[in-house]
């Protein structure tokens, strides 16, 4: 009997050892064998992941996956996109259907700690905001007592709203809609005075208005919605790769490296740039990647500033200001540890 117990214990120990050993590195190996990164995106969110006219996926979240593909496989296009609904997204990651979940997912304690998942960083600092018509003459959300508020159904948005108004001793009247198009129509037809949603989406809704210039987004942000890519827990190597792919995007912007000038700067003698492109410094060894992994990211995807401008910033129809998503050196939150 005792023997069986020992044997069973040994079996359990060896089994768990085998499992931890196989959980490590397995994602990168799988990606390299397959030849593409499996990336979970949204089923369509303006500026973050949506199909363009040719059927290519574009957006902030898509570019994170492209950066990871450039780093691991040397080709930003080697990505398989799986569009996921909000309810499916974590299961798809847990079950191994995707390698990265890059789907405007807010980093919260519950998600990070109890789902067996890890957030690899933040690629967009979002937060709930308000949009009003200019004719209302409101400059701050604190002047909104008694207003009718258009909300797109979604519990966090509604909860944040009620928290904010209660904290500031104001009253409001909620007008709930199901889809973004209905919300816009409701706002346009005057069913409500203000429209609330995540700030990034307010800009997307604004361009759907007949007269986009007639509406302004108020400065108050009433919630924290740090959006970032998610990976499975237990594969630290893959976690590092995704984390450092994002860091490379930010560091590249800080160094002034762009997709256009990286080839030229590569030959220069700035130490930080030489480390970045893999001529000096840590190179790709620790990550299990080739030395030019970061070079590939910048060359094929661009730096964080380029990604932002192209998808949601001045170079896009959304025209969102950098705001808190600017580099730390320019008054924003984007700060990446040095690559050395």
């Amino acid at each position, binding site marked *: 009997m005792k023997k069986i117990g020992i044997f069973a214990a040994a079996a359990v120990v060896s089994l768990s050892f085998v499992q931890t050993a196989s959980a490590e590195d397995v994602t990168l190996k799988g990606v390299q064998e397959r030849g593409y990164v499996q990336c979970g995106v949204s089923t369509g969110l303006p500026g973050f992941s949506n199909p363009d006219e040719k*059927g290519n996926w574009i957006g902030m979240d898509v570019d994170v996956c492209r950066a990871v593909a450039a780093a691991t496989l040397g080709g930003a296009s080697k990505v398989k996109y799986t*569009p996921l609904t909000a309810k499916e997204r974590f299961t798809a990651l847990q079950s191994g259907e995707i390698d990265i979940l890059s789907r405007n997912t807010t980093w919260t304690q519950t998600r990070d700690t109890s789902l067996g998942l890890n957030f690899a960083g933040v690629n967009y600092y979002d937060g709930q905001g308000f949009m009003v018509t200019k004719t209302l003459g409101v400059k701050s959300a604190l002047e909104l007592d008694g207003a009718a508020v258009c909300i797109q159904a979604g519990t966090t948005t509604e909860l944040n709203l009620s928290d904010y108004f209660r904290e500031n001793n104001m009253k409001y009247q909620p007008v709930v809609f199901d889809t973004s198009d209905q919300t816009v129509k409701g706002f346009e037809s005057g069913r409500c005075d203000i429209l609330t949603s995540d700030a990034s989406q307010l800009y997307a809704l604004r361009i759907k208005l007949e007269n986009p210039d007639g509406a302004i987004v108020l400065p108050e942000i009433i919630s924290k919605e740090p959006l970032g890519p998610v990976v499975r827990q237990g594969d630290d190597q893959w976690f590092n790769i995704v984390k450092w792919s994002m860091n490379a995007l930010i560091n590249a912007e800080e160094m002034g490296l762009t997709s256009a000038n990286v080839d030229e700067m590569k030959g220069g003698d700035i130490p930080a740039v030489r480390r970045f492109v893999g001529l000096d410094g840590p190179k790709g060894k620790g990550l299990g990647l080739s030395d030019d992994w970061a070079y590939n990211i910048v060359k094929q995807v661009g730096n964080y500033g380029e990604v932002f401008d192209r998808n949601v910033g001045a170079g896009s129809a959304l025209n969102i200001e950098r705001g808190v998503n600017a580099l730390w050196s320019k008054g924003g939150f984007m700060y990446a540890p040095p690559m050395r």
Partner: protein
Amino acid sequence: MLHNDHKLPDLAPPISTTGLVGWARQNLFDTWLNSILTVVVGYFLITTLGPMLNWAFLDADFFGDSKDSCTSDGACWVFVTVRINQFIYGFYPESELWRINIMFAAFAVLIAALVIERTPHRGWIALFTLTLFPIISFYLLYGDAFGLEKVETHKWGGLMLTLVLAVVGIVAALPIGILLALGRRSEMAVARSFCTIFIEVWRGVPLISVLFMASVMFPLFVPEEMNLDKLLRALIGIVMFQSAYMAEVIRGGLQAIPKGQYEAAEAMGLSYWKSMGLIILPQALKIVIPGIVNTFIALFKDTSLVLIIGLFDILATMQAAITDPAWPRVSTEGYVFVAFVFWIFCFSMSRYSQSLERKLSTGHR
């Protein structure tokens, strides 16, 4: 005595009973209630139809390459024309579109051959359509054999995915439904209870939850290596769900057949399968054609539910397309277009079923 056996020439009927006026008086203004209804409905038609036609056709822009091509006030069909490939083929690689076109063309030819009565060898064509054609289509669409490039199912989308879901659902659900219906009326206790439980379980849950189970729960129960394709999971769910409904429709037909037919078949010494296949089912299926087609149409429209599990049928493709920031304010055009496509398919199915009913009608009333 003057005798006139010449008939006077017929007078023309009063103007109020002929032509447009007569028709209107008979059909639109025959009672005061109808007159009021006509005026009200007419008012609504005039006030809505005009602006609608204006929006959809007269003031609309049809061709161009970006949102800027839409200069007039009406519909911006440019959005649809620019993305028509995406709406039809989804994310299928552009160089491989010919494969879908061949599949579409072959499917259309086969359907036409089956619908037109004078086609020779219709039985063989039907057999081919139901057995070999799906296999050929699968290899054509999926590839990875015969030198064709592999196109994974996550790139399938648009109308092509809608048709794949609907056709597979229809083709697979009918035979399974027939077996289930026979099983439920069988005298073998095990088969009967199995079929009854199967039907009641699948019919008792909404399709949305079936799809949800298939896409969200199922992968958690199986090991990681055994990852069934998401489309395949959804297809299995749809077929199970649909065959349960089909079984009940067909059972209705089986029960409508007079008992004498069953007894006559037995009296002729036919085996169970022969009596079913030669006597009962041909009559039963004929009776329930409206029910079957009704189920097919419902299934065709239900396929759009797959958008909640992130499969891009034509509706989901359109919904994703309207999120493109480069194309603001085109959602109405998108929804109208998709509704029109669905209507064309459902309406043709319903017309075909009506002609089939007329053709097969042998006067069982």
